[in-house]
């Protein structure tokens, strides 16, 4: 059991480090990812605690709460990655276009 917990925490921490610190995130996005990470971290260490928290929010089972948090964090990460990709794509388009326009030539041969 302890090995599974260590494995899960390692995977979770790796994913967290990757998303929270390698992307250009806004502060509120970074805070949301950190909160999601902390919640999942605690629930891995102490699974029964998730039942207590779930009951507090009226969800019922701890595992359901974990799935909801995972869904929320994954959705947030997908949106962040989409925006990041779009930003990079727009920048690439500008660069490629500038190179194209700067190197435009009028053909002299047929």
């Amino acid at each position, binding site marked *: 059991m302890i090995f599974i917990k260590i494995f899960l925490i390692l995977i979770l921490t790796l994913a967290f480090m990757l998303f929270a610190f390698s992307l250009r995130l806004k502060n509120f996005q970074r805070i949301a990812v950190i909160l999601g990470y902390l919640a999942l971290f605690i629930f891995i260490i102490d699974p029964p605690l998730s039942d207590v928290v779930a009951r507090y929010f009226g969800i019922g089972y701890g595992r359901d709460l974990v799935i909801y948090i995972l869904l929320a964090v994954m959705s947030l990460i997908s949106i962040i990655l989409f925006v990041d990709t779009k930003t990079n794509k727009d920048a690439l*388009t500008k660069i*490629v*276009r500038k190179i194209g*326009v700067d*190197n435009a030539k*009028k*053909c002299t*041969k*047929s």
Partner: protein
Amino acid sequence: MSDVAIIIPMYNEEHAIRNVVLELKEKYDYEIIVIDDASSDNSYNEACIEGVYILQHIVNLGQGAAIQTGIEFARTLGIKYIVTFDSDGQHNADDIEPFIKVLREKKADIVLGSRFLGKAENISTFKKYFLKASRVFTFFSTGIWLTDSHNGFKAINIGDFPDFEIKENRMAHASEIIDLIKRLKMKYIEMPCTIRYTTYSVQKGQSMINAVGIVIEYIIGRLTR
């Protein structure tokens, strides 16, 4: 220098581009701007015919991006009117002059070609009805009813519309242009044009399955623009 440019986005058209450009050169004194969208074949050299401006994207961006590159370059030349023309030989060079005439007479700021007012040679029945059905989508997304909303043959007055800018890199630019008409309050009309579906152009063209991707691309683009 003419105040009209024919903009030809091109991707892997080594077998067709030369005849397309030669025909345009023979019929018009307009500037011809070919944008090679990172072709992997010999298209660039085939398109490089005396007097033609040729630009190259170092990576493939898509037809919308290539047209916008052409527009930006045309602006540096002081061009006022542009015509977007396919590189695969589907469009008819004879259709250009009436379109430009309408722009010059200030009857419209943008003239949209319609194969359903004109001719669609050898079009498949499925494609015909699919394109007709797509008019409904365009109407609900833009409020503009067109007989042919996804026709690449257009003439545009870019001189009076400095904000005319295509941001959709790939095929969703056709729908984006309809959005621009509305946003920039451009006067538009549809005019008949001829689209020739040859075995070559059908093989090279968009599949119907891609159309679903284009719709999704357009919706996401609209939400994020």
